[in-house]
């Protein structure tokens, strides 16, 4: 409302002056954004999207700290004595184990566990349509399960309301990360990430190597103290000479129980091709008599199960963190992404009150699918301002086989490209129907309630 009665400015007068002001904003607006910047889940990204971590990274620093400190103390205080009295292999083996442990840990923490990207608006609409046609004619929430046959066994697929899709088998939604993860095992706070299909082998190698490392350090420290006491000294004196050893002993002693237990448990899981999630829920335990046939994913022998889980092909990351967003895709979904605004926009909005409303309405009516909307003519602002710097064609088209599709899709959001978040919010309060109709196009895909038969007129949910 306030923008409509704003400045009655002659577009021609502004056609030259905002250009210089536009350019810095424009170039800023045109900086291609990567997909990780608009990722809807609760994750943190590093190195420009190469590394991913859960936002709640739990006690990962503690885990790393414990490992590094214990190993550091070991190398500093126990190794010199042991090298002198035993063999130089000890620090070598210790060093290799330590490096392997840290590498596996970092790999587990920073690898995408197998996150499934959320369904696009069209997909979600399609699924709902299918469900509705099979059910009653009145609208009701989609049924939560779908039953399918896997290896002659009935498996229920659940519908995920956050990701708007039926979860594939063995997929679960992690509430901490707010993502559906394939072959979801568990969310490990020690590692600060979910453990799923893509990083389970790293997790397994982490806990196995950590068991070896802790046992190794424990054994070496015990040997160290024993050797000292054998030289005729009392144990108390021996400890006083090497106080760090006690610290290591305590840490290792308490870690060994849990780590060895966990390794044993996961070895069992690997051998029977189960996930922690399935085991805890007892998904296949009802068929206790023939356990193997209870689990439809298990192969007939243990070795195959192990190979599949640990040495199987490495699936790619499905979320394409480092891909570039098409400008329209940058607008919706999750984390605060500011859309740069050429300064002339308020003025153009004022003009849009009068001229482009009809244009937009016409366009809306012509297309059946909201997101299939494609302005047949020029972008909204072009009749008002001859040079439209914010127009999508200026933006770099994404490199993909669906280039033309992208262009068509991008053109959809032409009505609202230059809107910044704040101005769009204001405009939604305005009485200008153009905004009400136009703006849902990006915001609809942005909000969780994507599916609708008509424009989501009014205030879209902001989150």
């Amino acid at each position, binding site marked *: 409302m306030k923008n409509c009665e704003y400045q009655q400015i002659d577009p021609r007068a502004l056609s030259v002056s905002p250009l210089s002001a536009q350019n810095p904003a424009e170039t800023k607006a045109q900086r291609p954004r990567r997909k990780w910047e608009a990722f809807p889940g609760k994750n943190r990204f590093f190195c420009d999207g190469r590394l991913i971590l859960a936002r709640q990274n739990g006690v990962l620093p503690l885990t790393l700290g414990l490992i590094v400190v214990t190993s550091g103390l070991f190398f500093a205080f126990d190794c010199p004595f042991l090298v002198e009295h035993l063999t130089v292999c000890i620090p070598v083996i210790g060093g290799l184990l330590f490096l392997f442990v840290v590498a*596996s840990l970092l790999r587990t923490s920073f690898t995408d566990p197998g996150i499934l990207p959320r369904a696009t608006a069209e997909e979600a609409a399609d699924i709902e349509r299918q469900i509705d046609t099979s059910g009653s004619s009145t609208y009701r929430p989609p049924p939560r399960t779908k039953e399918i046959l896997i*290896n002659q066994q009935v498996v229920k697929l659940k519908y995920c309301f956050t990701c708007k899709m039926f979860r*594939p*088998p063995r997929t679960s939604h992690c509430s901490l990360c707010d993502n559906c993860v394939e072959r979801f095992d568990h969310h490990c706070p020690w590692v600060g990430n979910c453990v799923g299909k893509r990083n389970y082998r790293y997790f397994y190698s982490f806990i196995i190597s950590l068991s070896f490392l802790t046992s190794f350090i424990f054994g070496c420290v015990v040997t160290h103290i024993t050797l000292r006491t054998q030289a005729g000294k009392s144990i108390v004196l021996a400890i006083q000479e090497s106080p760090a050893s006690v610290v290591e002993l305590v840490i290792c002693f308490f870690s060994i129980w849990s780590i060895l237990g966990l390794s044993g448990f996961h070895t069992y899981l690997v051998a029977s091709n189960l996930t922690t999630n399935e085991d805890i829920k007892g998904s296949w335990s009802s068929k206790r008599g023939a356990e193997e046939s209870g689990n439809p994913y298990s192969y007939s022998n243990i070795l195959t199960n192990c190979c599949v889980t640990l*040495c199987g*092909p*490495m*699936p790619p990351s499905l979320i*394409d963190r480092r891909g570039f967003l098409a400008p329209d895709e940058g607008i919706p979904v999750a984390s605060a992404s500011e859309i740069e605004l050429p300064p002339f926009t308020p003025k153009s909005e004022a003009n849009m009150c009068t001229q482009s409303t009809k244009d937009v309405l016409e366009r809306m009516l012509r297309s*059946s699918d909201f997101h299939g909307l494609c302005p047949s003519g020029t972008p909204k602002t072009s009749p008002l301002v001859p040079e439209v710097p914010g127009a999508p064609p200026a933006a770099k088209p994404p490199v993909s086989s669906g280039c033309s599709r992208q262009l068509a899709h991008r053109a959809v959001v032409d009505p609202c490209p230059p809107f910044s978040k704040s101005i769009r919010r204001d405009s939604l309060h305005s009485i200008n129907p153009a905004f009400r109709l136009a703006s849902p196009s990006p915001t609809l895909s942005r909000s969780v309630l994507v599916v609708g038969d008509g424009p989501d007129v009014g205030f879209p949910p902001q989150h």
Partner: protein
Amino acid sequence: MTHSLQDMRQQAAVAAKVFVQRDYTSGTMCQFQTKFPSELETKIDKQQFEETIRTLNNLYAEAEKLGSQSFIEGCLACLTAYTVFLCMETHYEKVLKKIAKYIQEQNDKIYAPRGLLLTDPIERGLRVIEITIYEDRSFTR
């Protein structure tokens, strides 16, 4: 106004989108349903469509195959503390490139002339094969 195919594609309205869902009957392997969607009945030959889907399924099966190659790759990766992937492409990624090329080829030869467009499933998280049906606008403008 001149209308090149490119222009038409850009300005063509998306009439509908069809989604070919995953087929889980053989487990969690990536396979797509070969059922012919009713919306495509007037647009493309059923055999042609099924052929495309079947080839894609075979390609995905090849990517996820538990063969000696994947086993060696896995072991090598483990021994090098997974640093080998910094310089080497995984088998799966190689097959994905093949799939992308195949889809591009199919689009150019078969689907685009009929006003259809296949989207590479990897862009949809391997959940669906999205087929976009474009409106026939040759009579407008």
